[in-house]
């Protein structure tokens, strides 16, 4: 398997990542608080600690490219260009949400920016991404699809079926496996036999690249190379990004199955801090970075405030968009 080349990003690009990662972090911290306060009702899965992958990959996608995500998708969605206000409103279940409050965190989608949906079923997004790529190919469009999933998803059948499918039809898909070491409350090492996600991809004929998923520059460089290959007709590619989930599986998971020391050690490796260090070495000031972080927090505080004020969806919306033929009617069950 290829190791990703050493990254050497220009500082502007790195700064953009720094901003994006801070925005993702701030979004999720705000969402976490809103769930703890009871304002957000449904389960939410935070990607705190994993922001570099979303930012690094999506920086190499065009607006017209597509992504499919999983249950832990806020970062992917923001990095692809969605409005945090609309996302936050979705978490709050409001009419102004990306899905008018009908989906919640696990079903955020934003087709305008090519986000084909988070998913509540582990692994399901893989097939949707692969199928979208096949649709694009049929339509002779040169867009590509990136597909995010976790290390737990590699044990579900759709991983095999989807990767095999992408390869036999040589579809334009970039598979991105976010290996955070956990499937919910269980360490994936004990659940996954063999050489890992990349070995499985390679056994299916898909080249795999391993990258330090907490090094945003490295993710960006690796994703750039792979996205280029995909776009150039090189067929599906696989990026394995090692990272760590700093929060529990959901906001309500206290994650007592791992030690505080382990988390503290990993905290030192988290991607925003590492990016800041590089930027400081490159001559950026503490103040500038602090300002970026503060701006991100303010943006998300505004998103929360707006969500709080936003209207609930009308009951009529519950009956809408089920189906055209046989559309349900309030008068009759």
């Amino acid at each position, binding site marked *: 398997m290829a190791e990703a080349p050493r990254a050497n990003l220009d500082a502007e690009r790195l700064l953009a990542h720094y901003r994006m990662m801070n925005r993702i972090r701030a979004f999720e911290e705000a969402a976490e608080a809103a769930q703890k306060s009871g304002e957000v009702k449904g389960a939410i899965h935070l990607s705190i600690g994993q922001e570099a992958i979303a930012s690094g990959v999506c920086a190499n996608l065009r607006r017209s490219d*597509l992504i*499919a995500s999983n249950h832990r998708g806020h970062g992917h969605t923001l990095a692809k260009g969605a409005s945090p206000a609309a996302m936050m409103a979705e978490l709050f279940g409001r009419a102004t*949400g*990306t*899905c*008018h*409050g*009908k*989906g919640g965190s696990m*079903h955020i*989608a*934003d*087709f305008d920016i090519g986000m*084909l*949906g988070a*998913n*509540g*079923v582990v692994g*399901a997004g*893989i*097939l*949707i*991404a*692969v*199928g*979208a*790529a*096949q*649709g*694009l*190919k*049929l*339509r002779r469009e040169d867009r590509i699809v990136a597909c995010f999933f976790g290390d737990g998803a590699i044990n579900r*059948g*759709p991983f095999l*079926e*989807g990767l*095999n*499918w992408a390869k*036999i*039809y040589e579809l334009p898909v970039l598979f991105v496996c976010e290996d955070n070491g956990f499937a919910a409350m269980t360490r994936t090492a004990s659940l996954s036999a063999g050489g890992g996600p990349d070995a499985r991809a390679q056994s299916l004929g898909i080249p795999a690249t391993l990258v330090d998923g907490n090094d945003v520059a490295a993710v960006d460089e690796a994703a750039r190379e792979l996205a280029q290959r995909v776009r150039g007709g090189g067929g599906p590619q696989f990026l394995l990004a090692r990272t760590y989930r700093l929060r529990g599986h959901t906001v309500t998971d206290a994650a007592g199955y791992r030690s505080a020391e382990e988390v503290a050690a990993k905290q030192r490796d988290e991607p925003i801090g590492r990016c800041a260090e590089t930027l400081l070495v490159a001559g950026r000031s503490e103040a500038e970075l602090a300002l970026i972080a503060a701006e991100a927090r303010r943006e998300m505080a505004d998103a929360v405030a707006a969500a709080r004020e936003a209207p609930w969806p009308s009951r009529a919306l519950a009956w*809408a*968009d*089920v*189906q*055209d*033929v*046989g559309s*349900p009617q309030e008068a009759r069950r």
Partner: protein
Amino acid sequence: MSTLSYLEAARLALAQEMRRDPLVWALGEDLGRGGIFGQYKGLIEEFGPERILDTPISEAAIMGTAVGAALVGTRPVVEMRFADFALCAVDELVNQAAKARYMFGGQGRVPLVVRQPSGMWRSSAAQHSQSLEAWYAHIPGLVVVAPATPADNFGLLKAAIRCEDPVVYMEHKDLWGLTGEVDERADPLPLGVARRVREGSDVTIVTWSGMLRRVEAAAELLDGGPSAEVIDLRTLYPWDRDLVFASVRRTGRLLVVHEAVQTGGFGAEVAASVAEALFDLLRAPVRRLGAPRIPVPYAPPLEEVCKIGGAEIAEAVRAMVG
């Protein structure tokens, strides 16, 4: 008009829709060699391997990738080979295809057709004989179609392909060879509209798919006795309540006949709906005839136990009309 088999009618409908719309395509196992029953014969020659896609044995991927392909605006026709194998792809159909548009607040649509050859045919035993239409009728977001004649398989498949919603399209395997007149230039049939196959005054028999022939045979058997009105539902969801209710208003009696297991079958929905809505007009209790709640056995004399014949239906009618 020409005489076509049920199978040929569907093949023609698919070919016409593929000519009409370059975004219509089909995917499934062995399609390039015509499919297991020959429903796709000759299509790869006309449309090429990209639009008549040979797939691996990956039912979950066949269904799941079709969802993605539909979300980006193509119109996949998914071939499941046997309805029983669609059970390998239920998450993809029920959690994804049926719900995507709704969950995403209307942003995407999933205009796919899932062809599920159903029912008992040539001693196929428990894993190749099921009729599970009731399952799909229960799932919000899905349209469920079950054609009983060549003309319907032509007109309804065209309609299903043009439908913006995911359609579960259940062809009956034992009807493949049934021939009938088909207007090759006919428009798609409307979905959700049943067909009154025969007029009658004493009882309304509602049925669909492979059982239509048996019900027609029963109506013949009754000749001189009670007069049966026969309705082929054609679309199970949405089902044509108006036509059924209007008929039961006249006859005062309802018998639903289906091949599927009776317990929890779709006949329960029809019977319960009529019992709820037309209680005061009913001259006899509603009645259902479906298969016993046993897996379909292999040996012909055992399989017979799952089958409902014309005589049994006629007998049920006589008991109802009394």
